[in-house]
């Protein structure tokens, strides 16, 4: 089992021991409970945002309690996309279950696959060969960029800027083309196998990735030109959906949302997996924890991903891509928790093995689901328009929330 207190990164977290080391958290300031009859105002309005609503990114249903336009409280109703992924895992072999994880966060399918494969590898005590790790890093970081591009487009669309959506989709297309050439699928890639990769890179893979890096760097500047200094964008995102570092940690929020609140927590650095330790990159953090900071953090993350990909593609070694894995995967009895830094935050897999070919229990810690908890804290006292902005900035994927 991973022991969080022992990692080197803990020193980056302010007062990390208090939050991570098992001390009881003080949540009294959060006011997470909705009081019984908090408001005597006769103008209270309850509206149902979703499950069919253009801004809830799928089938999220948010019950909003409004005073005019002011949000008094929210309640998320989820489960409209529940497919029982965790239960399915108990009836499939380890290998058979691998494609299912792609259907959780379907805009970052590669990351999901990586987390699952590494978790099972950990359970089996095998290590993927270096070349496989490099390929994994390249594809995962490409996927991070694609996920952030999709987030940016839809987030901007929610706030009313239609145009960035088409720009980001144009550029995301190039990433999907690389995926398609590599493994034949664009969205639910199933790129990795337990123990490494199934496919060797196609001819010209490095060249294409390099040309993509050259292609996309100015495009990110282009998105920023559209939004970063746009006055309306600033007004709509600054001081909207603010969440403090303490609240974010108490709620278990991870990923860019946590980092925008000023906590330098990134599993790629904190508990390096694959071969992230070999690469030189920075973890962007914000200061205010508002929507604008989250936007900036994600923009910098895209650039940092480009850096990682560049280093990886230049240093990719020759060698095997598959470790020695038994034909029938039968891990020893035991349990394992492994987490990676998915585009949306900490994606963890907790697998209990009873020694058979199928997991006894598989539990996913989806970043979207956990981050969604912060919605209520972030939008209390804000306006309806901010709810939309905050749902966008949390970057949830309902496939992952509901599983």
């Amino acid at each position: 089992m991973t022991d969080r207190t022992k990692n080197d990164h803990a020193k980056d977290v302010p007062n990390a021991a208090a939050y991570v080391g098992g001390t009881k958290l003080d949540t009294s300031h959060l006011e997470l409970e909705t009081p019984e009859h908090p408001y005597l105002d006769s103008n209270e309005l309850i509206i149902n945002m979703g499950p069919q609503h253009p801004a809830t990114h799928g089938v999220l249903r948010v019950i909003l309690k409004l005073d005019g336009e002011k949000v008094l409280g929210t309640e998320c109703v989820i489960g409209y996309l529940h497919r029982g992924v965790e239960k399915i895992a108990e009836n499939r072999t380890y290998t058979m279950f691998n494609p299912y994880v792609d259907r959780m966060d379907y805009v970052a399918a590669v990351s999901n696959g990586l987390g699952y494969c590494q978790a099972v590898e950990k359970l089996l005590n095998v290590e993927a060969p270096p070349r496989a790790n490099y390929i994994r890093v390249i594809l995962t970081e490409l996927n991070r960029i694609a996920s952030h591009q999709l987030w940016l487009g839809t987030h901007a669309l929610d706030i009313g800027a239609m145009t960035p959506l088409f720009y980001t989709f144009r550029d995301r297309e190039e990433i999907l083309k690389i995926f398609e050439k590599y493994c034949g699928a664009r969205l639910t890639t199933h790129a990795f196998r337990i123990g490494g990769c199934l496919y060797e890179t196609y001819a010209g893979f490095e060249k294409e990735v390099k040309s993509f890096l050259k292609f996309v760097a100015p495009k990110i500047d282009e998105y920023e030109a559209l939004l970063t200094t746009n006055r309306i964008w600033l007004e709509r995102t600054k001081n909207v959906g603010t969440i403090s570092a303490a609240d974010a940690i108490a709620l278990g929020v991870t990923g860019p949302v946590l980092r925008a609140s000023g906590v330098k927590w990134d599993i790629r650095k904190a508990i390096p997996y694959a071969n992230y330790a070999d690469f030189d990159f920075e973890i962007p953090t914000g200061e205010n924890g508002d929507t604008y900071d989250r936007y900036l953090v994600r923009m910098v993350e895209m650039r940092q991903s480009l850096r990682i990909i560049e280093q990886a593609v230049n240093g990719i070694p020759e060698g095997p891509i598959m470790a020695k894995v038994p034909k029938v995967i039968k891990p020893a009895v035991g349990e394992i928790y492994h987490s990676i830094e998915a585009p949306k935050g900490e994606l963890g897999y907790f697998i209990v093995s009873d020694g058979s070919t199928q997991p006894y229990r598989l539990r996913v810690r989806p970043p979207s689901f956990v981050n969604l908890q912060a919605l209520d804290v972030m939008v209390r006292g804000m306006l309806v328009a901010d709810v939309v902005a905050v749902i966008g900035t949390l970057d949830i994927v309902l496939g992952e929330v509901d599983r």
Partner: protein
Amino acid sequence: MLNYITSYLGSPVTPGQAGNQLWALIYVLIIFAGVSVVVMAMNWLERKALAHFQIRLGPMRVGPHGLLQPIADALKLMLKEDIIPSEADQFVFWVAPLIGLLAAFTVYTVIPFGPSQAVSDMNIGILFMLGVSSLGVLGIVTAGWASNSHYPLIGALRSSAQMVSYEVAMGLAVVSAILMTSLNATGTGTLSMIGIVQAQQQQGIWFLFKFFPLGFIAFIIFAIAMVAETNRAPFDLAEAESELTAGFHTEYSGLRWSLFMLAEYAAMIAVSAIAVTLWLGGWMRPFPNLLNAPVWEFIFSLFPALTFAALAGFALIGTVRMPSHSFFKIQRIGLGVFALLLAFIALVLLLIAIVGHNSDNSIAARTREGIDYIYWFMLKVSIFMYLFIWYRATWPRYRFDQLMRVGWKVMLPISLGVLIVTAIVGVVVK
């Protein structure tokens, strides 16, 4: 009877002033049909322009380059089922789009497309326009209320607060332009739309540049307020699709929904026409006082024909460049016919320009003048129409409190200040 019909031709005033009700009716019909056609064209143009802002093609299938798309859309909307929610207030739900439409179209009675190319020249023209266009909000409010649903209700409340707020800044900006009309020998201004343009003609300057930058600031205030008045991006909070699904017309469908769209676009054209009339010299061509030699007159009167010739040229290039695939055969023919149509219009306009310039026939000369006036007016209006599309492609949406803050704390003080300074400068100059 024939005399009654022909007697108006060649008259230098509007049919309303001449007391000729038949011609007034004809003008009304022409304007109604014209605005409807322009709205359809505008629909196509918005989709195409927006698409090209967003690196996509827009409608391409119905007709060459989607030229017939608005017709197909209109047909579809007319054939669609007209759903009235069972819990809605049936009568109010039914009548709400008509209120908006009536308000949007009634405004056109006083818009001066030329010194005599208007239905009527009312003494209180601009006041009438502002008043009637402010009735449009009633359609939105009643629609939102009658739907008996929360999203439309919020949309309606937003819209009513927004329109009432921005009307104030808009009205003050208009007043500062009206003040400028009184800077003549007699010292009396006018509220008449035609009178305002004639005042600009007499003073030899568009009010946009009068007392620079006072006129310019007032114009900018109006240009912002008119976007808010017509509920367009970035002020489209009443129908913000990402927040309120579709705002006040969430529950509407089919023809009734299309009436809202028609009203919105008609209102856009109407407010643009106000802006053009007040600040951009209305129907006047550029430099009517400076370049007033007959030869300049003739050159400027060639512009309509040249514009249509250029459009025909574009269409022709498109026809030639269309891929030579059998799939595009009909499209190619269609675009070619469209190019020919444009070229034909250009030819007719050219003939009118030449004949009108040379002959002594008053009707021909008047026709030529009329085409000139309408051309320049519509050209200026179309700049605003393009700006509306441009705004929509560029900017995110304001939030409601920010919108109110901009309206009351920024635009209102500025427009008040401009009004006061304009009044002081006007007195000093006089």
